């Protein structure tokens, strides 16, 4: 049964993506989540879909999610039509989240492509709040064009921040883009890593993940130190509906964050025929 949250603010990120700030009533326990977890959001009368939580886990009663509108989206189109003050059904949080608590003291490299950034943004907020618990924090973010980048203000803040490194790239630049043009794996050559101390958190399209992983392997980063958020497959969120089942893993229950060796097994299952 969903709880009802009211839309407090809507931030237009790009032409197709909006970030919704939602408030739960004070008598609700709130959204107590860890970075990487997701929740089920519904427009009552249209349907329900899972989206990652992208705000700081510090806030309980106000939380955010970023949603891309697809032309055929049964939920995303009506969701994008909602205004401040409208109600959204939420269930959650769900899933396992990134293993931030287990990687204290290590260097964290965050690699995001396009719409992969939201849950990692939550992880960045968490690490900046607990800065002393981690070594280097590095963000590598790639988008198609400068316009397509999410959270442009946050990216600027992170770029300016003395507490973390932030590298961005775009596939196609415009006249005003001062930064790097190229693909995400190329950014890896611009950072200095200490492989044995490094844990990598990733989320992005498969075409980005594969070359990034092979580059990281070349750099001697262990496959057991790479974590990937695979939230694209889910539906019910509680391991019952079966849609996200790959082999014997339910992405929504056993994930959505998986260690790379687990991902390889799942991909082997998918690619066997």
């Amino acid at each position, binding site marked *: *049964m*969903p709880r*009802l949250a*009211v839309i407090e603010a809507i931030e237009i990120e790009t032409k197709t993506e909006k970030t919704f700030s939602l408030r739960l009533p004070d008598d609700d326990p709130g959204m107590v989540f860890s970075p990487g977890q997701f929740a089920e959001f*519904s427009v*009552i*009368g*249209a*349907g*329900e*879909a*899972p989206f990652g939580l992208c705000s700081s886990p510090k806030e309980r009663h106000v939380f955010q999610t970023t949603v891309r509108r*697809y032309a*055929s*989206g049964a939920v995303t189109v009506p969701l994008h039509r909602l205004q401040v003050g409208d*109600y959204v*059904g939420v269930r959650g949080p769900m899933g396992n989240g990134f293993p931030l608590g287990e990687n204290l003291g290590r260097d964290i490299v965050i690699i995001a492509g396009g719409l992969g950034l939201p849950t990692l943004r939550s992880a960045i907020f968490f690490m900046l709040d607990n800065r002393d618990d981690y070594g280097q924090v590095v963000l590598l973010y790639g988008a198609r064009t400068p316009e397509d980048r999410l959270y442009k203000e946050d990216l600027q803040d992170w770029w300016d921040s003395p507490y973390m490194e932030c590298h961005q790239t775009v596939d196609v630049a415009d006249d005003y883009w001062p930064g790097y043009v190229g693909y995400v794996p190329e950014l890896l050559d611009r950072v200095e890593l200490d492989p044995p101390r490094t844990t990598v958190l990733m989320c992005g399209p498969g075409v980005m993940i594969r070359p990034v992983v092979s580059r990281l392997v070349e750099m001697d980063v262990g496959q057991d130190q790479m974590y990937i958020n695979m*939230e*694209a*497959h889910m*539906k*019910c969120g*509680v*391991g*019952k*509906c*079966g*849609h996200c*089942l790959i*082999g*014997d893993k339910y992405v929504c229950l056993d994930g959505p964050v998986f260690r790379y060796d687990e991902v390889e097994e799942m991909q082997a*299952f*998918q*690619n*066997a*025929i």
Partner: protein
Amino acid sequence: MDRGIRACILAGEKLPEALAQLFALGDRVIAPTQAPKGDIFFCEVESAAEMDLSYGNSLVSPTEHLRPPKELYFEYRLKDEGPPEIIPPPPPSPFILFGIRPCDVAAVQYLDHFFLEREPADKLYGQRREVATLIAMACVEPAAETCFCPCCEGGGPVSDSGYDVQLTRVGEEYLVEFATEKGERIRRQWESLLAPATPEIIEARDLQKEKAGEELFELHANLAAAVRRVSADTVSPATWEEIGRHCYGCGGCSYLCPVCTCFDVNDMKYDEESGARIRQMDSCRLFGYPREAAGGVRGFSLPYRARMYSYHKLSYEHFKKQGRYGCVGCGRCIIACLGHMGMPTVCELIRRPPTEATS
């Protein structure tokens, strides 16, 4: 008898009276009935006369009353001002499921584990299960030529557990076993009709059970061999190609399978202001099943679907999560499949390379 099962004898001629007395308990009674063209369905009945007691097994598993193909999460009413109203469905009223066959009893045990014991528990299933009393009717002979329950681990024509009451026909009498609190309620209702069980009848039943398992079933499925090969991942892609070649992607096997659990969640509009959120059965054999966030469908070929279906039912990895394999030997997939790819054929193809086994 162990495990606190109380065994009694019900004389064959007293069965109609026993059935009539079920209605006195006030629960809804769901029992096998015959549809106009002869298919059997488990439907709510108002008198014993509506039941068909010469049935083999139903076309659709009686588990549909515990996990309906379509059910309500909630109804909603949109308001001009303020939050939409969300109205949970009324809780289900108690019912007796009479005449459920041992394969479906095994399926209920599977569903109990899947929906209730595996966290998080499913509330809708839990509510229905709680008010359901299962009266099983053991099979003295195969209910149909498509039956192969003795080949399934923990299966067979007589249930060992999972029922509240089980009737087994032995000659002109029924051995009636009451296994639970809910069963005890039925026993009290039937008290005047029952006689204490004798060691002879129990022995006769056990003999009958053994014989049925070994001799009477003509159809065999080599599930054990299929399980070994699927779990060890030694099935060749050619096998899946072959199964996929016969698959129309209609989903019939999963819609009839008593242990298939996949569903889809949708909002259904009654009108502009009101509607309901429902879940309805879905099948991994259908094309749109794994649609992803971006609307894409990753390489979901018919062979891949066949493999996914078999892997879910037959692999040791899923056995570890579920406590039993996902086939109870009811044979409904054999009836459903247009391409003649029921579970026994699939097992055979998995066991032997397709070049030898193709028809």
